[in-house]
């Protein structure tokens, strides 16, 4: 596995998931916000996958097992709280990860990380504000937000599995992430899930090409057009 594939697939898959909200978001303003975040991630994915090879081939012609994204980003959107919990967990991680990569000037990832870290800081801010409002909102929004944090918690351990050739202090990354997320969750009057951060059989699996069931369906939809009409442009 290469680092460019790991980071590029994270961005590509989450971008597609967020894009699925188009036409379905609770309000128009939020739909634009989610689409904006999706487009930022798509831009990152294009740069990262191009470091590895042909971006279209990599995005549209690989089989499920060849994808190296973490399982967190492929999880279905669920209700709005699920999407926000996924965003909170992942953007907090990505901001710290890109921050470290940007400061490591010799790395091939420093330029893309330096540009992306500003985008991701906004994604984290967006997730943070919604977590606060849903957690500290109505009893129903609080319950849904807590349920979302709980059900996605077991996909967070994988984020800190070291990726080969990335100049990252993974322990510091994990500590920083836990501090950030703990703080937001507490201010939102929610409880950070206490259980294990990995499923019994899933540890580090996405990075090795093992994915959860919904991912295959997502990929079928994402790749359908290119596979049916190779090289189509518009």
């Amino acid at each position: 596995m290469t680092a460019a594939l790991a980071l590029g697939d994270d961005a590509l898959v989450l971008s597609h998931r967020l894009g699925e909200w188009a036409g379905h978001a609770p309000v128009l303003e939020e739909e634009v916000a989610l689409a904006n975040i999706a487009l930022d991630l798509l831009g990152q994915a294009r740069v990262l996958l191009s470091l590895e090879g042909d971006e279209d081939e990599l995005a549209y012609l690989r089989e499920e097992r060849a994808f190296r994204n973490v399982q967190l980003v492929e999880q279905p959107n669920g209700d709005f709280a699920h999407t926000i919990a996924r965003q909170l967990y992942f953007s907090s991680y990505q901001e710290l990860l890109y921050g470290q990569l940007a400061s490591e000037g010799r790395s091939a990832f420093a330029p893309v990380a330096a540009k992306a870290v500003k985008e991701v800081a906004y994604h984290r801010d967006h997730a943070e504000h919604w977590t606060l409002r849903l957690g500290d909102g109505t009893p129903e929004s609080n319950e849904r937000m807590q349920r979302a944090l709980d059900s996605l918690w077991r996909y967070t351990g994988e984020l800190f599995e070291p990726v080969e050739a990335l100049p990252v202090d993974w322990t510091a990354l994990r500590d920083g992430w836990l501090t950030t997320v703990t703080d937001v969750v507490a201010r939102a009057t929610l409880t950070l899930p206490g259980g294990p951060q990995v499923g019994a059989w899933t540890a580090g699996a996405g990075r090795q090409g093992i994915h959860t069931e919904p991912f295959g369906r997502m990929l079928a939809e994402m790749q359908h057009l290119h596979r049916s009409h190779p090289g189509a442009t518009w």
Partner: protein
Amino acid sequence: MTGTDWPLWEVFVRSRRGLSHTHAGSLHAPDAEMALRNARDLYTRRGEGVSIWVVPSTAITASSPDEKDPFFEPSADKPYRHPTFYDIPEGVQHL
């Protein structure tokens, strides 16, 4: 949760330093902080701005179309009120 439950906000964007904020449009948001973020996504995503204001639409008092004549008509025929007798120095763009 629907947009109609959320208050309306007017958005003002300053496109460059030195210019004033101009009205860009309006949007729905649950509170001021979210309105600011929605405004960023709706009105500045193509690099249009360096500063954003959001104002609750209810805070704006507007002139009524019925008052158009008493409000605006008397100023139309008084050219001496217009500063048209000055030479504008070269290079001044945003006077």
